């Protein structure tokens, strides 16, 4: 059997975790090119949060009570809106296939892409949340718990959302369908996240909720990349 004279490329044994940084840098470089989308997610959240006082009235006591729920649901919807950006443009221009064909393990690449998505959506939302909190009369440490809960919770929105985004690639009516798939999965994050802030309002200890949120995030960080990779392989079959 004639052997391949071009000896099989012994790629310097590829360190799988390098794939994480390759995917992360790639997506951040792409995201830097369209900062507009980043600002849109923040603007969307600001608008949604500002709508509620118009709907329920400016009465301070009431606004403070509903603040956790409003800010958290707005963050959820903002994250949902940015999820298509994870794979849709790569799917259209054919680069997603190249990601699937990379020698790096696909789950590691998916983890990198998901982190890049969180850095450009979830993180800014969490960092700017105090602005929205002030609108609702939250004070110092309550805002601290709000930011902490969003920092722990929004990564899970990106992870679970990535599974939905991957499953609905190229499907007609994809974005509504994706929301239908992932919103039920967001319920625990919403409960623990908004619950933590609510406990802060009533002066109760918030470590239980925040630690549960952290546990869900860690579980997600370990399990979702495999599911995202499987979903991508199914969609691009």
């Amino acid at each position: 059997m004639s052997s391949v004279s071009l000896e099989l490329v012994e790629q310097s044994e590829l360190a799988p975790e390098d794939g994480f940084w390759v995917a992360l840098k790639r997506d951040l470089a792409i995201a830097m090119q369209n900062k507009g989308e980043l600002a849109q997610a923040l603007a969307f959240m600001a608008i949604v949060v500002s709508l509620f006082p118009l709907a329920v009235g400016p009465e301070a006591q009431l606004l403070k009570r509903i603040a956790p729920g409003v800010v958290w649901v707005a963050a959820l919807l903002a994250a949902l809106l940015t999820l298509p950006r994870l794979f849709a443009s790569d799917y259209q221009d054919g680069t997603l296939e190249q990601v699937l064909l990379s020698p790096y393990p696909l789950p590691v690449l998916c983890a990198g892409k998901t982190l890049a998505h969180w850095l450009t959506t979830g993180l800014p939302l969490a960092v700017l949340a105090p602005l929205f909190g002030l609108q609702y009369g939250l004070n110092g440490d309550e805002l601290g718990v709000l930011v902490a809960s969003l920092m722990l919770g929004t990564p899970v929105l990106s992870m679970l959302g990535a599974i939905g985004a991957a499953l609905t690639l190229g499907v007609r009516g994809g974005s509504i369908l994706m929301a239908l798939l992932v919103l039920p999965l967001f319920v625990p994050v919403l409960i623990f996240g908004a619950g933590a802030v609510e406990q802060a309002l009533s002066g109760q200890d918030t470590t239980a909720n925040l630690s549960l949120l952290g546990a869900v995030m860690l579980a997600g960080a370990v399990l979702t990349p495999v599911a995202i990779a499987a979903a991508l392989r199914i969609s691009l079959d």
Partner: protein
Amino acid sequence: MNLYRYASPASFYPLAGRLWPVFAVIAALLAVYGLYEGLFVAPTDFQQGEVYRIVFIHVPAAWMGMFIYLVMAFYGVLALSFNTRLSAMMMRALAPTGMLFTFLALWTGALWGKPTWGTYWIWDGRMTSTLVLFFLYVGFIALTESIDDERRADRAGALLAIVGSVNIPIIYFSVTWWNSLHQGLTFSKSGGSKMAPDMVIAMVAMVFACWAYSIAVALVRARAIIREREPAHVWNGEAA
């Protein structure tokens, strides 16, 4: 290298054809017996009077809704790991029935809640989890119906069912945790211990009636799926 050679649609089709009437008859008999026990024989509840009899369809429906979703996830694992078409067809055959039972659990729960606790909708752990489970079903059916390519639809549905089933315990825990934070009032609907023997008999009969019914419907729907997907010679052999 199909491990499940005998579980090919061609050999499953006639088998299902013979089996489903058996389960249908079992379901009908058990249902009649269960309803008779539940509506006529079981004593009146000293607290809730007659309206508690709704439990004989509410609890089986809720259990079936949950159980069928887990069976779908099980078939999903088979479909993805062994690439067998039949397990994907069974998974999709079960989904509508599971959704129906989950809806009926919500409906009967609401009609039971009104006279007993004064409101149609009770934000307690079980009912809220059942509502989220209903959305999981809607998501599954919406996803599998909107993907044209059958194979991708099956495998996408399988993955969603698996991810969903992993999340069910987390959702159930978080909702009951949330409920305990807010009202601290948990309703124990079917307090097993204080149920009179006749009540238990009625409940068990209705649960098995729902099982038999689900199996019969799933077999018939699986046969319909096979007819829709497989070329005619696969299923046209036996007398229609």
